[in-house]
């Protein structure tokens, strides 16, 4: 068998060596949804209505978002997810990957969400209650569809994993929980600092570094982006794989173009638009 440079049996093309050295980093608009509305809060509270999630999703995709993340923020409280219709609608015209979370408790819930057009599901509460669920989902749908979302709050020098928008303790250390989730089959970890959420004061770099050091799967960082400088800080100071961005985009403080230019400045790969 022919082999070159690690993985496949074909010679690399010399002119692309520069591209080969580029880091891959994804920009993921996060759309928190309550009933049929895109909403946004501060520190996962005080939600304000932003608009039609499908319209925002389509705009972000056209403007160069790499993926979309939808979260039903009240689903766990009511133990149901109302995103099916929204995802089905978005998936009929938006052809970029979508992760969907909020209130997913069973393999059947995952199946239903994927059937609506989601590519991955994010689980939090149900996984902390029943960690075997991570493995069950990964075995059935693959690790690439299994995302564990962790909401973290700092307490007495360590990070605690929370549920229900930072309201409830799980009794788990957030960093150790990320490690366990990856070992159980999660193909991606979303780590969000509850205290930074919605403030636009920057990502919790220390938390991202800790989580990224404990897992070998991609780490998506959420909670805090307010300026392009915050993105640059995340990219240059951590080896996170992606940033989730909400309020800065929703309130149009920044556009996808600003974030993409910043990524390009840091030497990351930026996908070309049609």
């Amino acid at each position, binding site marked *: *068998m*022919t*082999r*070159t*440079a*690690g*993985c*496949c*049996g*074909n*010679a*690399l*093309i010399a002119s*692309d060596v520069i*591209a*080969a*050295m580029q*880091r*891959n*980093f*994804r920009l993921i608009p996060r759309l928190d949804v309550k009933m049929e509305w895109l909403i946004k809060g501060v520190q996962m509270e005080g939600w304000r209505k932003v608009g039609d999630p499908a319209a925002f999703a389509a705009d972000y*995709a056209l403007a160069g978002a*790499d993926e979309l993340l939808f979260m039903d923020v009240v689903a766990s409280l009511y133990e149901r997810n109302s995103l099916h219709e929204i995802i089905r609608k978005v*998936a*009929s*015209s938006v*052809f*970029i*990957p979508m992760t969907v979370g909020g209130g997913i408790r069973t393999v059947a819930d995952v199946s239903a969400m*994927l*059937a*609506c*057009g989601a*590519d991955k599901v994010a689980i939090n509460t149900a996984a902390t209650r029943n960690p075997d669920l991570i493995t069950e989902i990964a075995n*059935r*749908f*693959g*690790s*690439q*569809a299994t995302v564990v979302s962790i909401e973290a709050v700092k307490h007495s020098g360590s990070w605690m994993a929370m549920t229900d928008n930072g309201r409830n303790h799980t009794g788990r250390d957030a960093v150790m929980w990320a490690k366990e989730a990856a070992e159980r089959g999660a*193909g*991606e970890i979303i780590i969000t600092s509850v205290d930074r959420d919605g403030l636009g004061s920057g990502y919790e770099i220390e938390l991202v570094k800790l989580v990224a050091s404990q897992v*070998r*799967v*991609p*780490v998506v960082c959420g909670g805090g982006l307010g300026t392009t400088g915050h993105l640059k800080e995340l990219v240059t100071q951590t*080896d996170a*794989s*992606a940033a989730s961005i909400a309020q800065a985009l929703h309130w149009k403080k920044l556009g996808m173009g600003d974030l993409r230019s910043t990524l390009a400045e840091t030497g990351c*790969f930026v*996908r*070309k*638009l*049609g």
Partner: protein
Amino acid sequence: MTSKSCVIIDYGIGNVFSVTQALAHLDVSVRLTSDRAAIKAADRVILPGVGAFGRAVDTLRAMNLDETIHSFIETGRPFLGICVGMQVMMEQGLEFGTHRGLGLFGGTVERIDLNEADGRPLRVPLIGWNSIHQTTPSRWQGTAFSGVADGSDFYFVHSYAAMMSNPQDVAAVAHAGVGGITAAIQRDNITGVQFHPERSADAGLAFLSGFLAQ
């Protein structure tokens, strides 16, 4: 426009909704089925797939769809495997043990083991957009890639990649860290893509249009 039709093999593995939506967007009449006669009679066939190699190929065999796929390919009509649907066309896969594939292409599907430029191992699954390149200047001529610009970006999500025995079978490569990944394979009427055209925005639709035009 001439009526285009496409059968997607329904074997319970893979995100068929998004493939169906992308084809519907291109005005194609899509039939999702596991009916062997319908698959054999199709104008063109897509084999989707996500998850693990062994589970996918075992399911195809349990449903006797492996024979159906071989019969269809003998007709010379276009056949496309996407992601794990591409991987199972290989001789064997090493995900969770050694599994025999459909053997349409020589080589093995192995776990991605590549480094970043700074020496750190790449995080796996490999998730994200990546540019694909043809292996020779006219490699894409007359293939499903004929309407795709060299260097176009597609969305990938995978932990395993195809190591090809015959470099001629490689249609496209993508760079990952300091290495390369088999992005697409093609021989005669058989095409396989590691990326997800149905999740690759305009470039993905251009590729699918090319497949439909074959």
